[in-house]
């Protein structure tokens, strides 16, 4: 009973405080002390975080090689597009990558495309998630326009994304011996197990007059076509990297890796670049100085601001809460 009444009263009081607008509140006033303290605090937090991040990024060894121009033979360089579209010309090409720093396995192999709008609206929507999971059982593939069917038969996987599958291939040779490339487990596990059907096999794929990119082995179910799965996780920006595989051997300093690649993929039409990147990894991921730099910059500018404010505070101290600052109190000056 008593507690009930007390609770009732407490509720009434709370409501009373509410209607009389006198709820207990903290009223922070941003005094110079606070401003300086907060800036200092920011500096103290962010500079170490930034440095640690930078260090992690610097630990990562990365070799990048742009090969799209050099892999076109000298005579064809004037008209790269017809070169790449001519199936009769062999496309193999060899590149040399020198390891400048010890690289610990696993070493990730990425291909990087620039000026490639994987995030274009027409491109992004041209897929059928249901078909990827259910295969030909699923008929409504209108979203796959314009690569929906061929010769009145459905295409599996349909859509522009799959159609334009990247199909350059890479082989790595060190000191005459081939480096083993592990191409398993390069796609998101969630993608493999939930988005791509285990019993769905490529069908009628790349059979049209226009070939966009790589072909798929119709014997392997989609859930195991990891290249496709990686490719179909569309990128956010027009310049992106995608995982190709893993070298599970360490590379020593001054090792030279010979890359035998098939330069199949056409980026010449639209002036895109192709790059190959070998990279190790840290707890933070790949080599990315941006986060570290940003943190250090934020920390440093906070510190600088704190110091500037401190100097200002010493030099031009504004007496806080000085009523003579109020305009109606200094009327005598300005009128």
């Amino acid at each position: 009973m008593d507690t009930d009444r007390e609770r009732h009263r407490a509720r009434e009081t709370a409501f009373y405080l509410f209607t009389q607008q006198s709820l207990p509140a903290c009223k922070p006033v941003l005094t110079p002390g606070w401003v300086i303290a907060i800036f200092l605090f920011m500096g103290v937090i962010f500079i170490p975080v930034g440095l640690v991040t930078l260090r992690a990024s610097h630990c990562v060894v990365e070799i990048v090689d742009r090969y799209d121009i050099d892999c076109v033979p000298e005579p064809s360089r004037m008209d790269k597009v017809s070169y790449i579209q001519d199936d009769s010309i062999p496309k193999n090409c060899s590149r040399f990558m020198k390891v400048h720093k010890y690289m610990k396995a696993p070493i990730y192999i990425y291909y990087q495309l620039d000026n490639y709008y994987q995030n274009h609206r027409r491109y992004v929507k041209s897929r059928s998630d249901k078909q990827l999971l259910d295969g030909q059982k699923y008929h409504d593939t209108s979203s796959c326009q314009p690569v929906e069917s061929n010769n009145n038969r459905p295409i599996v996987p349909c859509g522009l994304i799959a159609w334009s599958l990247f199909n350059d291939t890479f082989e790595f040779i060190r000191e005459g011996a081939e480096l083993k490339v592990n191409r398993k487990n390069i796609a998101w596990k969630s993608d493999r197990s939930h988005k791509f059907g285990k019993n769905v096999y490529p069908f009628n794929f790349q059979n049209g007059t226009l070939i966009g990119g790589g072909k798929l082995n119709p014997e392997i179910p989609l859930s195991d076509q990891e290249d496709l799965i990686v490719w179909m996780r569309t990128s956010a920006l027009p310049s992106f990297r995608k995982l190709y595989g893993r070298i599970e051997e360490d590379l020593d300093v001054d090792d030279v890796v010979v890359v035998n690649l098939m330069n199949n993929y056409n980026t010449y039409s639209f002036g895109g670049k192709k790059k190959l990147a070998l990279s190790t990894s840290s707890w933070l991921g790949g080599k990315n100085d941006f986060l570290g730099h940003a943190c250090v910059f934020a920390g440093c500018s906070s510190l600088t601001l704190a110091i500037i404010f401190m100097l200002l505070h010493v030099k031009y101290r504004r007496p806080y809460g000085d009523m003579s600052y109020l305009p109606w109190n200094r009327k005598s000056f300005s009128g």
Partner: protein
Amino acid sequence: MSGWGTPSRTVTLGRVQPQSPALRTIYCNHREANFAHRYKGNSISTTKYNVFTFLPKGLYEQFRRVANLYFLMVSILSATPYSPVHPITNMVPLSLVLLFSLIKEAFEDWQRFQNDMTINNSLVDVLQAQGWESLQWKKLQVGDIIRVKQDGFFPADLLLLASTNVDGICYIETANLDGETNLKIRKALERTWDYVTPEKACEFKGEVQCEQPNNSLYTFTGNLVVDNQTMPLSPNQILLRGCSLKNTDYIVGTVIFTGHETKVMMNSMNVPSKRSTLERKLDKLILALFSTLFSMCLLGAIGSGIFIDRKYYYLGLSQSVEDQFNPSKRFLVIILTMLTLLTLYSTIIPISLYVSIETIKFIQSSQFINKDLNMYHAESNTPASARTSNLNEELGQVEYIFSDKTGTLTRNLMEFFKCSIGGEMYGTGMTEIEMGVAERKGIKVQEAKTSTNSLREKGFNFDDVRLMQGAWRHEPNHDACKEYFRCLAICHTVLPEGEETPEKIRYQAASPDEAALVLAAKNFGFFFYRRTPTMIYVRESHVEKMGKTQDVSYEILNVLEFNSTRKRQSVVCRYPDGRLVLYCKGADTVIYERLGTGNDDLNKVTRVHLEQFGSAGLRTLCLAYRDLAPDLYESWNEKFITAKSSLRDREKRLDEVAELIEKELILIGATAIEDKLQEGVPNCIQTLSRAGIKIWVLTGDKIETAINIAYACNLLNNEMKQFIISSETDAIREVEERGDQTEIARFMKEEVKKQLKQFLDEAPQYFCSPSGPKLALVIDGKCLMYALEPSLRIMLLTLSLNCSSVVCCRVSPLQKAQVTSLVKKGARKITLSIGDGANDVSMIQAAHIGIGISGLEGMQAVMASDFAIAQFRFLEDLLLVHGRWSYIRLCKVVMYFFYKNLAFTLTQFWFTFGTGFSGQRFYDDWFQSLYNVIFTALPVVIVGLFDQDISSSLSKKYPELYKEGVRNMFFNRRIVAIWACFAVYQSLVFFYFVSLSSSTSRDSDGKMFGLWDVSTMAFTCVVVTVNLRLLMMCNSITRWHYISVGGSIIVWFVFIFVYSGIMTRFDRNDNMFWVIYVLMSTSYFYITLLLVPVAALLGDFLYLGVQRWFFPYDYQIVQESHKDDADSINTPDSQETKEHLTPDEARSNAISQLPKEVSKHSGFAFDSPGYESFFATQFGKYVPPKAWDVARRASMKSKSKPK
């Protein structure tokens, strides 16, 4: 004055109904005959919707809002293939907003419906087959004869046939109609007095011919035809729906108007809703957003036109391509991409803004303003009441206050204070004003000693040994005294109530002046104790001997009522000895015009007295009488009766007839009544003027009275340079005496122009020098009339805007409205009108904010107002505390909405650049749709409710802070630009920090992020940052802030956990599947989540720090100086220590302390000096119709509105 014709046009508060030419004929007690006319039934419905119209009508109402309509269009657009987003993206927020609004509407309408049902189903006795039968109100029909018992409400407009009281009299209370709680008398025609019992009533067969239903409350014209005998009907026989029966067992009446045709229903109108200035500026902001949206779309669309090219073969553009991506139709591409981007960027328009603002304002007004104990008037048990929630923030920007004097600045409490009888002045008291004057002159005032035997009573504050206790008999002019007192006791329309002893009787009077006068007569020994419709009984202390009394009865033959044209009231009475006398009391000007010749000395002396009274701030009336010869009276009375029964222009004719007899009067003397200042008025005015608010007093009083009240209120003082434009100058008088109207007008105009010009030339030299005196302008009604003409208006405006106070006296209600709209429209300043009477209605409606004093003089002002407060001094709380807070809060809410939507949409915009301008969406559909309505909705409402820069007591201590609102410091272009800059900066940080840092990053397993991973990361940063930014803009942070901000962020995470964790076969959101889990398994997520909000807010924080440091707002300085005593103010202080009074307890406490008073009087007992008659006279006379004549325009508007 009598010379002016008064076209009787009734003007009413509500819609003006077109008068049907035909008369209505009602066959009483004859259902079949009436059936043919198909009169409307008596059931009423005040609901806006019914079951079928609710959806269409409610939706129509909602889509009248541009933002909603826009979102509807976008939703439709997003169902087309051009849309990058799923239709739900725009449908969800729109439907949530609509749902919220519709539920609110439905709830309100349901309550109205419930009310209607209760009313329609209440029972009333109807005559059926010789007996009374209970019938529901809704089944009542025109012509039915019904019985209403004591305290019952009249179910329809009735014609009173009979009453259980003698002489067919009944008493009614009209509180529901006009708020007046005094009883009014209604009297049945003598012919119908008998129909009290059902048996008798059955026999009644009559025909009522009357006007068509209209909304004029105080008029009724019609005739009752019984047995071929025609009898005129007047409002005196009409009982209006909504009134209740008092002091009468029951009455019998016949129904003449039913249901929606009753006068009260025809008067119920929607108060034209006012929109606040802030909201109108908000429209501009929305417009700016629209143009931003348009240019963003245009930019993107042109980009897409340029970008699209067949070389991007992977886009499959080589074969037949739909138009939007067809490189050979670039122009079409641009157009269609415009549509695409329009749907994509639609979030830039904050759809939930209006709903949030409405919610905030509603709570502000219903919970804060209405329940503020500081604005609760215990004596009258009246809390403040916000009658609209549209204008809360407007209260924070008021620059001009137009105030009525009587009842607003002064209490409507009249005390008989002095008098002048037969050329002798009586009364020793000194008014506050006189004391003030004396003080200013430096004379020391001693509190005059009151004689020990002085009698004080509410309404009587008179002391003079020469008159009191019957001493007047020894005065040399005791005959005049006798006449004077009789006049006071007889010439009035007061109703006595209660026991007939001098101690216990109470007087019900139309105006407090009247009650005070009758009270005075009582105290002088002429005790008026009973009234019947034809007689007045006065217990006169014996004229010769002390201590003996004698009951005298006077027959009242005619009452010539008071109205504002006549400004006088007369009673023709017959003494017991047959002497016929006309007693008249009225305004000095009116009475002096009608005095007979001779007695010039008395007249002159009395005029001097009148002036003295006036300068002491007293209200004066002149008393006069005239002996009538019987034959003269008889011939006049005939004319009077014809006038009274005329169907058309009755009032005008009555006035004309009255003129015939009210002449050759003999002056007896004058009364002076003190009009007491309201509590705390001078202090409040001083505080308000420190807040930079200019106060104008608009009053009907004389120039001297007005000036003196202004002095007493601190509005004027001797340091001020006063400009006085008065029509009471010799030159003007001279021209007036010549009597040529056109010449007078021309001359006055010239004169006013000359004066204005002169003052305008003088003015700069005063206000240019900083220490110079402030300026004040005093102008009277006649001059104002000319000064308001278009040619002089500008001069008047310029002059008055430079004055810190302006007093307009002798102004009509219409002029009050004109002056108000002069400042409102001419100077574009925010105006507030405050008044208490019917004559302030037009002014209240004309101003941006109308405030009614819910006090003594009826409810009409309150009904027309936006806010009602009980005391003038509550303005201080209303403006400085509530208004100021509301303004600051609303500004914050609006700016925050603007910022958060801009920042969010811009991230999308930057993304567009990276997608070949294709209009690909960055965020998932649900993210975008719930951003406004879930993830960022609540905290901003909390800020709108709870944010306080400084406490209420400091707000009142530093009224100067109010100026920040007047100057609109918190919502102007600069502020918008600053917020926009930070929104742009933050959006850049959101997009580029997240996307750049993700471009080469991956989890430690080497896998890369795709589009949806990046966008989820970015959205998380946006939600966190935007919510944190809200905390940064708070001046006070309560628990609710933490809960709502933390809650919003948590809700986002809960949402994304569930959303990305679920994938069913029916709803495959492949894009989002498992995204958040993968993200959160990377260290990248945490570092980014730490870095991005901080980096985004660093700019804001720097701005806040620098702004406070170098360009502090005034309130910030006050904040700082009171930082340390914040605790004592914060913790529920004084009120809390009042030992936990809950509002209810406080109220009941207050009620128990109330003086037990049955009624707050007002309104004329026999007939109200209605608002309309007051107004109607103004129409034909003073004011030629003008386009900016507000009251007129309002009525025209309502006319054109379809019913």
